[in-house]
């Protein structure tokens, strides 16, 4: 029965509206009896869904806005204000309908994302390609994706080559090329080409599924303002009932008391803050920025100090071996071979760079490492092919009691001054040679930092495990306020703590793995991560899926805009209620007109929040204008 009424809610609104029009027409024709009768029918029809909802809420001990309206309508019927009763019920239903429509718009960003989810996959089983629903793909399946097709699961390219639009995951719609062994993500689209992949993560484990889940939970998690408003409305609604009773007792004017009841409904106040958050978080998700909830938005907007990790955050994080120099009779390629075999057990990006270089030279890295030990922040050591090999920084050489010849030290310093990281290598406790590894600064770093300073960042700090010279080189180019080099992960944590103690609100941006402790310590933890690693998505408050610094500056200005929007809405809602209450007490606002203004204010706060969906970076607008000027 209830479900049936719900289904026909739109018809109920329409019928009640029609009856009201008929009522007014018969009133104009001078037939007041018919007018009253028709308006009563209109009221009863429109009241049914309202009463049901009020009753249901009451059963679970919740005071709903429907309850207030129900009481008011019954009151209005008692004092024979049929017009007002009919108009109020109609406006309430119609307003709800409009609200649902516009609310859907503020939620549209997430819906667009969800709609990108793949539905079918073509897999090869027993040698024949089959099209199956995406839920049935299993880890290890060989999946075929053709031009125009969606990647159904996360996986690795087995054969073929293609340009992929990764907007669903990174927010970046410029296609990127994928070759054998590259990772591809569910939800991304093959723009051009043909690839076959091995499924690695399926179902709810894919990065795309996790993004959706994160955003859904983020939109649900409430900011402090919202929590306050929630509590507030819990007390507010019964308080309004009580107040209107007092008004009635004092004035003996039932009409005034009922009007008061309707006007004081907390509509715009309750919905104002959440819609801003939902729209803001939705905007972020669409642009590859995951903000984990209203509280994060709130805090992020207050950040005045940015701390960056260098490698992988300010730089591209794709270091390359630029030079191999030996100082004994060992050949450079033998040195590379030994170091690379050892580094296969390391997860450090510099170690991985050495492995990559060896692979690029088609070296065979098979053969075990014995007694391998990772010296966190310093390097690695172990036995390879019968040799004891130590690979790492100066400190590790000192720790291992290996003396470095003067010429090698001079060479290392020169390499570092040119922006390289020098990696020292010793074989059988004798210094053997060094690798030079360099990483480029991101093209958008300068632009993003300048923008964020404009938006209110007062202090920018760089922390790096890298050497002084390399750090200095980056700082000179980007203009940091402070920098600290040759740090271990725990030192980074200490620096973040110190800045917090000095009274700064600190956001720490890192690549998410070795910076995880510092990211967790900061007021706001930001993780860069191409496609997002699991760790970064869990520890960070804000995840930049597209791995771009301009996304960081977008996120910062977005958080400020969202908080501003929320304040506007709250301020607007409170003032409307105050103005209306004054109007009621001075008897210039009536039941129907009060309801109208009330519903209009709810729509206005939603419309205001909708502006956030289209919120764009100021700079991008600027760029557009510049292009226009050039044209």
């Amino acid at each position: 029965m209830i479900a049936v009424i719900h289904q026909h809610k739109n018809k109920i609104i329409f019928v009640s509206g029609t009856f009201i029009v008929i009522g007014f027409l018969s009133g104009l024709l001078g037939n007041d009896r018919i007018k009253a009768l028709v308006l009563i029918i209109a009221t009863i029809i429109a009241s049914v869904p309202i009463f049901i909802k009020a009753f249901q809420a009451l059963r679970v001990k919740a005071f709903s806005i429907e309850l207030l309206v129900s009481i008011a309508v019954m009151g209005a019927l008692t004092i024979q204000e049929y017009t007002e009763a009919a108009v109020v019920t109609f406006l309430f239903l119609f307003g709800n309908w409009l609200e649902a429509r516009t609310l859907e718009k503020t939620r549209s960003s997430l819906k667009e994302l969800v709609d990108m989810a793949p539905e079918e996959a073509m897999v090869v089983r027993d040698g024949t390609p089959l099209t199956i629903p995406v839920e049935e793909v299993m880890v290890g399946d060989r999946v075929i994706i053709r031009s125009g097709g969606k990647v159904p699961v996360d996986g690795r390219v087995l054969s073929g080559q293609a340009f992929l639009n990764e907007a669903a995951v990174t927010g970046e719609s410029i296609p990127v090329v994928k070759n054998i062994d590259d990772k591809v993500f569910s939800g991304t689209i093959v723009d051009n080409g043909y690839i076959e992949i091995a499924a690695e993560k399926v179902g709810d484990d894919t990065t795309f599924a996790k993004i959706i889940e994160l955003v859904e939970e983020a939109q649900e998690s409430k900011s402090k303002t919202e929590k306050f408003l929630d509590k507030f409305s819990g007390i507010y609604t019964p308080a309004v009932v009580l107040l209107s009773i007092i008004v009635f007792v004092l004035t003996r004017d039932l009409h005034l008391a009922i009007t008061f009841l309707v006007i004081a409904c907390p509509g715009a106040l309750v919905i104002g803050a959440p819609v801003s958050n939902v729209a803001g978080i939705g905007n972020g998700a669409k642009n590859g920025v995951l903000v984990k909830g209203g509280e994060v938005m709130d805090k992020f907007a207050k950040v005045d100090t940015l701390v960056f990790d260098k490698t992988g955050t300010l730089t591209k994080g794709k270091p390359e071996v630029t030079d191999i120099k030996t100082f004994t009779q060992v050949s450079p390629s033998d040195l590379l071979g030994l170091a690379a075999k050892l580094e296969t057990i390391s997860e450090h990006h510099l170690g991985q760079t050495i492995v990559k270089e060896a692979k690029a030279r088609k070296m065979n890295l098979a053969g075990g490492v014995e007694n391998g030990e990772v010296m966190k922040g310093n390097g690695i050591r172990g036995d390879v092919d019968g040799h004891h090999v130590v690979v790492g920084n100066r400190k590790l050489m000192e720790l291992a009691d290996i003396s470095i010849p003067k010429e090698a030290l001079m060479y290392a310093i020169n390499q570092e001054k040119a922006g390289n990281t020098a990696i020292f290598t010793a074989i059988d406790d004798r210094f053997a040679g060094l690798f030079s590894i360099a990483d480029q600064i991101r093209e958008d770093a300068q632009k993003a930092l300048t923008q964020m300073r404009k938006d209110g960042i007062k202090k920018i700090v760089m922390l790096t495990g890298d050497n002084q010279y390399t750090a200095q080189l980056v700082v000179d180019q980007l203009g940091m306020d402070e920098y600290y080099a040759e740090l271990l992960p725990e030192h980074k944590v200490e620096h973040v703590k110190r800045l917090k103690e000095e009274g700064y609100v600190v956001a720490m941006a890192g690549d998410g793995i070795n910076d995880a402790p510092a990211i967790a310590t900061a007021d706001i933890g930001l993780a860069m991560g191409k496609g997002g690693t699991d760790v970064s998505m869990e520890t960070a408050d804000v995840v930049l899926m597209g791995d771009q610094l301009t996304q960081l500056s977008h996120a910062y200005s977005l958080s400020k805009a969202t908080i501003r929007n929320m304040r506007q809405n709250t301020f607007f809602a409170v003032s409307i209620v105050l103005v209306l209450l004054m109007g009621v007490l001075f008897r210039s606002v009536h039941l129907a007109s009060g309801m109208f203004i009330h519903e209009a204010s709810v729509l206005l706060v939603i419309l205001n929040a909708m502006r956030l969906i289209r919120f764009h970076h100021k700079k991008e607008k600027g760029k557009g204008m510049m292009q226009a000027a050039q044209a």
Partner: protein
Amino acid sequence: MTKAVFQLEPLTCPSCIKKIETTLSKTAGVESVKVFFTSSKVKVEFDESLVQASQLEEKIKNLGYPVLAAKVS
């Protein structure tokens, strides 16, 4: 323990959350209920030997919220 996710029509009133949460959590066999207001989803964890997903769906429907899609895992 079975988990079900019900997709509802867009929710508009915050009091709907309490309605659905209270009704479902009173049902025997239901372990936890979470209503996602923004995405209009209900996530329920329940014991399948005591209650069926279809019964939960029916309960939500009877409250006046049509279920558009259900996913049980």
